[in-house]
């Protein structure tokens, strides 16, 4: 059986209509949520909100049109899901704005600046970058040329917060860079650049890294001198942890590197070695660094520290409990009881007001997004694209797991933003660039032009699908 036979290559539908329909649904949900908050809190719906709703709709439409124009065969699920998550984030940020304003009013304090309009502005910027990425990156394989540039730039951004003057420490973690009035978290951009670097680097080095030199316990292990990259990644992660005190980012990078290494080399030994390195790093960090030690102590017994270091997590758990199965209802909980309700703890606000039902819906949205990313990775035909799509999806997955797990006390709490939901520009922009890249790769994977078929690959795929 040959795939060059015109009969077997059916015209692939582009599914752009489905994408548009889903986008309209996402937008409509946002409008309903906003109205519900207005009614429930007694704030009504300020006129400015209709402008917001219109702007969000316009932005979504622009993205849809650009995808239609530049990535016609892209997966139709990615864009609507990411848009729905962003809209849900905007709705919750608006909700928390309302709560903060009401609290200020009761205490006769000056009204705080709402965050939702700033977030909307960041969404607009994210859309610009999304469009730019789709237009500029016509073929993701070209990105492979800049592998080392990406790597260096990524490392540079990672250490940027340590630079004097512009580096800023907020709440104990040095993650921010402030230039003029603008501040951003370079780690969010660095995670994309480093994923690009890992993908490009591993595609080239995978053969030598996969070479088995020693056998131990039935598993093939690489030679000591090939451990170099692993050690470097480990050291960088630890460096981020020690100097920037950013546990979340540290975990994210190391986890990402190990999984990509495993995918590239197809050697389980790397996972085992990586786990050992992780265990050593975690143990050292726990023993040596007070902030890591504190996080674990609070994780094990938050109730003892309910009024001090455990305040956040305890309030978060109370929020989830208050939500129960059906949730308190949008606008009817106390989301601002949890400090950083609209950034790290936005999931707690969702758990309180939308309940377990809302949490399941939310996590399944992420699951769909990540599954679609991995599907693009599996079906694209070049190794670089496979590694890149897998890496980007894994970044999202790890980030969701680390922050949601932290906020719900499944694992120790580490500061990370919740993709698409959290208030904060760098995170939103970076995640939308990830979506742009995944859309680009999925478009390549689903495009029905047969000259890209490599006979061997095609055959393998047919076998796999049976």
């Amino acid at each position, binding site marked *: 059986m040959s795939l060059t036979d015109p009969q077997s290559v059916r015209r692939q539908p582009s599914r752009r209509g489905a994408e548009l329909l889903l986008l309209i649904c996402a937008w409509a949900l946002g409008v309903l949520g906003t109205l*519900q908050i207005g*009614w*429930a809190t007694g704030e009504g719906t300020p006129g400015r909100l209709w402008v917001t709703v219109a702007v969000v709709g316009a932005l979504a439409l622009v993205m849809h049109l650009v995808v239609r124009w530049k990535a016609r065969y892209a997966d139709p699920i990615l864009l609507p899901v990411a848009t729905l998550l962003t809209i849900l984030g905007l709705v919750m940020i608006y909700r928390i704005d309302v709560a903060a304003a009401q609290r200020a009013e*009761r*205490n006769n304090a000056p009204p705080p600046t709402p965050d939702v309009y700033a977030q909307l502005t960041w969404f607009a910027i994210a859309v610009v970058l999304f469009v730019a990425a789709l237009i500029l990156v016509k073929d993701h394989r070209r990105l492979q040329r800049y592998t080392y540039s990406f790597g260096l730039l990524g490392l540079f951004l990672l250490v940027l917060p340590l630079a004097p003057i512009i580096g800023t420490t907020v709440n104990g973690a040095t993650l921010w860079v402030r230039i003029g009035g603008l501040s951003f978290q370079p780690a969010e951009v660095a995670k994309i650049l480093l994923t690009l670097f890992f993908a490009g680097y591993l595609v080239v080095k995978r053969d030598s890294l996969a070479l088995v030199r020693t056998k131990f316990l039935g598993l093939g292990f690489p030679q000591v001198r090939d451990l170099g990259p692993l050690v470097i990644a480990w050291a960088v992660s630890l460096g981020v942890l020690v100097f920037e005190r950013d546990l979340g980012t540290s975990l994210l990078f190391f986890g990402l590197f190990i*999984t990509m290494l*495993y*995918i*590239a080399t*197809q050697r389980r030994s790397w996972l085992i070695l990586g786990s050992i390195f992780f265990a050593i790093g975690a143990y050292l960090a726990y023993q040596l660094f007070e902030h890591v030690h504190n996080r674990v102590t609070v994780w094990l017994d938050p*109730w003892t520290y*309910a*009024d001090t270091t455990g305040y956040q997590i*305890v309030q978060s*758990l*109370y*929020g*989830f*409990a*208050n*939500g*129960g*199965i059906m949730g*308190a*209802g*949008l*606008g*009817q*909980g*106390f989301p601002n*009881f949890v400090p950083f309700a609209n950034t790290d703890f936005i999931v707690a606000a969702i*758990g309180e007001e939308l*309940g*377990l039902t809302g*949490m*399941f819906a939310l*996590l399944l949205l*992420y*699951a769909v997004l*990540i*599954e679609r990313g*991995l599907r693009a*990775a*599996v079906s694209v035909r070049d*190794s670089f694209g*496979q*590694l890149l799509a*897998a890496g980007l999806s*894994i970044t999202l*997955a790890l980030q969701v*797991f680390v922050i*949601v*797990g932290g906020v*719900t*006390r*499944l694992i120790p709490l580490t500061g990370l933003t919740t993709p698409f939901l959290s208030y904060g520009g760098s995170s939103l922009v970076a995640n939308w660039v990830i979506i742009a890249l995944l859309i680009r790769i999925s478009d390549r994977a689903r495009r029905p032009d047969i000259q890209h078929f490599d006979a061997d*690959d095609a055959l*393998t795929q047919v076998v*796999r699908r049976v």
Partner: protein
Amino acid sequence: MMSRQIRRIGVVLALMLVALLVNITVIQVVLARDYRERPGNQRLLLAEYDRERGPILVGANPAARSVETGNTLRYLRTYDDGPLYAPITGFYSLIYGATGLERTENRVLTGKSDLFFVDRISQLFAGRQPVGGAVTTTIDAAAQAAAFKGLKGKVGAVVAIEPATGRILASVQSPSFDPNLLTSQDPEAIRAYYEELKSDPAKPLLNRPIVALNPPGSTFKLVTAAAALASGLYTPDSILPGPASYQLPLSTSELQNWNRKECGPDGKVTLRQALAISCNTAFAWLGVQLGDEALRKQAELMGFDTSFQIPLKAATSRFPAELDEPQTALSAIGQFDVRATALQMAMVGAAIGNNGATMQPYLVQEVRGPDLAILQTTEPTKFEDAMTPLNAAQLTEMMVNVVENGTGSNAKISGVRVAGKTGTAETDNERPAVAWFVAFAPAQSPKVAVAVVIEDSRATEISGNGLAAPIAREVMKAVLRQ
């Protein structure tokens, strides 16, 4: 190709998703109740302080109501006669949760009860907070006030019941507490007051009328007399032995009358006269003749060994199981391990007055919606037929004789025939004896049955007639509007 590895990673990520989902389910479903009720968690109470809670009404007047404050906690729970109604309303505290009707009727008061289904539908669409319903109690304000006044300075409780229905007309305790001080918006003051109440040896937080268990002493002779009449072997005129002291069977101990005298000439006495002068030896003998089975059966028909929810949970009054003869003799005069609440003894009086039918006691007359429309009314229900109407009428006459010619003289009300029984019960040497009075009036078709128990009065002379009967009289007069 790397697809297999990507799929494997996908499986790992799926497992991580499952871990998140399971963990969140555990928190929001299994642990949620525990988390909500943790002492540091203010959400639930703040949510409740944020909406108007329905009133608890005595007649048309609120015993508990929500008042708008104009600050962060929008509503303040206020009790207009706090200590007077504390055993009924309970308290509703930011820190210590709720007790009394505030607790049992919470769903009505917050408007979350299914009775408000229609209101809730409209609230759901408007996304508004539910408005609470009102709970109307069965309490008679005048009876409650009379009992409260009578108990002043003593440790004890009063319960009054309408015999024909089981409606609770009064439930009073002393010492009481002021629920206003537990619902204030100052957590430190609340804690201080609560600690003070908790460390008070007189236990003001105890819901004494329905929870405090005391030996009923001679008032239990009503149950023994009822069992005697029920046996068919005795009438009010039956002659019983009533010596000055009674040798307990199989024992060297002797039981004595309170005045250490014989109950009648030649140590013989009628059942009627034995009740009138509260003859211990005659009733102890009678108890042994009837046997513990018959006594227990009669006691249980009147409410012993049953846990009542009125809807506050009352303590279970008990008649002990498996008694030997000396224990039966002591139990027949309300000593040994017989224990009763004031509520229980009021039920005994009410059953006799109500032609022998024991009614379920209840405290909530009706539930009204936010618009004051009646949504639910409690219908009286019979608990058991404890006596035949004939026996009940005979026992009633015997009790009238107690007040008119016997030990219960202080319960007399001019122009009204009052049926009553005194009691004095020994507890242990550490505590003073407990004084009781159980009565109902008017004797034919009574409007009120009342039980008064005084645990401590700081009086030297302890007697049911001296301490408890005057309080019972005032409560009955209040109900009869005398």
